[in-house]
């Protein structure tokens, strides 16, 4: 057995002292969050490459399993898609004509196609929060690739979240469905603003809360909500999702509803980071 058991301090005092230290540390890190970031970055720099390695093995295994399952489905799908393609080709031609018209009209209005012009960097999702309480994930690009805190993250055609922490080779992204996330949104049709809040209780429905809609605004189910101009961190005009189930609040002053995000958060693999900050734009 151990010979060095005669410590000068009893264990309960050690626990007491450590608890006090940590409680102080909690307050310090809440108040001065910047002081802790060098340590966090150091730990993250070591752990992230390992996570990346394991994740690539895991992805390879699940991918090859999926491949086997999918072959039959693919043949059927291929047939359907071919039929679809012909109709879409026709629609595409009409759309091209419309686009030409749109461009000329835009020229008249002096509007830019802002959304497409943002410079973007692609990144892979490598790990998720170890607990089950938050929707925070890590991507494999960091300050070495020109990313910084508060950059917007999108996937496909919708908003995913925002970067909250950057290391040399990794960044942490808080998704909009996270319980502590808040985004100012805007209805595409009426330009009226609303607050979009993540909520863990709704996560199984694949929806999030929308609050503070002006009671006079006319909104219909399925209306598009985009990021608003007044947000200090989110670039304007990025699609967030579609609103539904709007109801009047008990105060009779505002309405609230639910939003279905445009992005499928369950199968998030590759995301795009917009390397332009809102502050730099204006």
């Amino acid at each position, binding site marked *: 057995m151990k010979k060095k058991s005669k410590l000068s301090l009893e264990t309960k005092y050690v626990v007491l002292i*450590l608890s006090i230290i940590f409680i102080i540390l*909690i307050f310090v*890190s809440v108040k001065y969050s910047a002081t802790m970031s060098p340590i966090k970055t150091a730990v993250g720099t070591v752990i992230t490459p390992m996570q990346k390695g394991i994740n690539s093995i895991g992805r390879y295994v699940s991918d090859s399993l999926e491949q086997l399952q999918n072959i039959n489905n693919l043949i059927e799908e291929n047939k359907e898609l071919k039929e679809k393609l012909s109709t879409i080709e026709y629609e595409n031609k009409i759309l091209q004509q419309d686009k030409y018209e749109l461009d000329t009209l835009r020229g008249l209005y002096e509007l830019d196609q802002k959304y497409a012009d943002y410079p973007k960097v692609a990144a892979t999702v*490598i790990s998720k929060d170890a607990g089950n309480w938050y929707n*925070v994930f890590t991507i494999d690009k960091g300050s070495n690739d020109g990313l910084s805190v508060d950059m917007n993250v999108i996937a496909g055609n919708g908003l995913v979240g925002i970067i909250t922490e950057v290391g040399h080779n990794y960044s942490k992204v808080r998704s909009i469905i996270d319980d502590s996330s808040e985004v100012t949104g805007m209805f595409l049709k009426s330009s009226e603003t609303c607050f979009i809040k993540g909520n863990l209780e709704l996560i199984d429905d694949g929806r999030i809360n929308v609050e503070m809609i002006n009671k006079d605004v006319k909104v219909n189910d399925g209306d598009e909500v985009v990021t608003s101009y007044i947000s200090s961190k989110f670039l304007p005009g990025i699609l967030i999702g579609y609103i539904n189930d709007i109801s009047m609040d008990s105060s009779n002053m505002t309405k609230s509803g639910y939003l279905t995000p445009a992005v499928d958060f369950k199968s998030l693999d590759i995301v795009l980071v917009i390397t332009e900050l809102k502050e730099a734009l204006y």
Partner: protein
Amino acid sequence: MRRYLRYLIIFLIIIICFLLQTTFFQTFALAGVSPNLLIIIVVSIAYMGGKNQGIIIGLICGLLYDFIYSDVIGLYSLIYMFIGYINGFLNKIYYSDDFTMPIFIIGISDFIYGISVYIFEFLLRGKLNILFYIRRIILPETVYTLLISVILYKILHSINSKIETKEGEV
């Protein structure tokens, strides 16, 4: 000097489990939750080794979690440290051949861990629907953790007894 070998080995196990928890088990999440491997390590080490080891291992796990995923440094360290400390008392009733008791206390510890995370991170923000959180997150996580602990505790136990025989030789 041999004592440090024990901590080195445990530290390696913690790193491996942490990596698995954040990558592998996130892909293979059941009912939307992933198991809490770190709590299995803390409770088993505290149960097999006593209060002092429980505190140290709890601290290492908590700090690792704090530095990588938490916005606030110290909260998870506190929770894990107390879980390690309290389970260290159960070292008095430790029997080498008993495999039900440790799994039982791992379940209880994970449940307490879930409740304390709820209290500090959600209740303080005014989210009162505790039944939902218990049903959706805490209970599934506890059940999944229990399933994994059946295997992981046996591995940890055999590693621990190997280290003990090595230490006994000196």
